[in-house]
């Protein structure tokens, strides 16, 4: 069980923050990042925006082929899972 529980869905929706809503809708559309990760970060909205702006700039944006970055993402995740 997660040591920190996400902010509940209704609270996030009533934030009335279009930027945050946009991150969630895009996460639902593509499954990346996991929407639950965003719900967790929503506990600190400034932290959510900080992370999401970084992520959207470097993972979704940029000039490197997106499929290659996805390959790196999956490979790194697997490397760390192998440690435990």
């Amino acid at each position, binding site marked *: 069980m997660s*040591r920190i*529980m996400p902010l509940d869905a209704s609270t996030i929706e009533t934030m009335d923050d279009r930027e945050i809503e946009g991150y969630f809708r895009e996460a639902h559309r*593509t499954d*990346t990042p996991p929407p639950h990760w965003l719900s967790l970060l929503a506990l600190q909205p*400034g932290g959510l925006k900080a992370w999401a702006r970084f992520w959207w700039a*470097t993972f979704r944006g940029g*000039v490197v082929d997106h499929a290659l970055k996805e390959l790196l993402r*999956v490979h790194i995740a697997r490397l760390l899972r192998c440690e435990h």
Partner: protein
Amino acid sequence: MARQHGLTEERIAASEDFENQDFADREKAALRFAEQLTVDYRKLNGEIYENLGRHFDLREIAEIAVFSAWQGNGLRVIHSWKAETLWTENRVPLPFTDESSIFGNPQAAKEPFDPRDPKRQMGRAAPSLVAGDAEQKRNRQPRGLPAQATDRGTPPEWISFLSHSPEALEGWSEFFRLVFAEGILDVRLKAAVGAQMARLLGSEVWFESFRERAGREGLDEIGSPRESAALRYGECITTDYLAVDDELFEELRRHFTDPELIELGLFVGMMNGTFRLSQTLGIGGKGSQVAKMTGWRSPLNAGA
């Protein structure tokens, strides 16, 4: 989810043994770099960077490097929260699951979202920068962030490296501003945690940067149980993230709210990645150790 990004299950499985599988040299170079940065950054030598440089330009290298640095260290933080169970068990209701439109525009909900697009923020659909063609992306310029980041004590060499990629520079600088400079936690506390992590990873330039900031904010007063818990958490994530056990987390919860723990974790994860990457680039007063060993020329100075 990876399939939606152009990867097949076969390629995902094959990447585990990518050196012996049918991957392009370009893909192998990037995988080799990301793997070494994640597993042991101290062994990320000039040969790996040289190989990366044969297939990618500096802008692409900065983008791959900063993305990989977060990915490797952010996952350590996620594990310390045991947050993976949230999306594997999928029991917690999520917001915005309805099919309604985004920003009042039904079509926009079907298009890639870009937080940098001001027109999209205003509730009108607009062509996304993310969806733009390669030339449009290549022509993007950073928006006056280097001076701001440097003013906050960021080593100029780090900004110089990031400046090769507008996306890496903007993304990292925005993260640093919101999480370190403007977050809900005391800057002094975060600076002390940052200084300790930099010391553990051997990054003198980052250690001095954060120590100076912590001193300005009153470092001498560090030592309360709350501050000790934060320092211990930062140390565990840096040296052995699996050591963040229930006892340590209970201690953290005695002193920090959930929003504060989120911010602390984000800061610790990003700075760990930043320090490790900085070390491989030779950022600091002693020059590039990698360059000394191999004759490799750091991308920090390329094009200067």
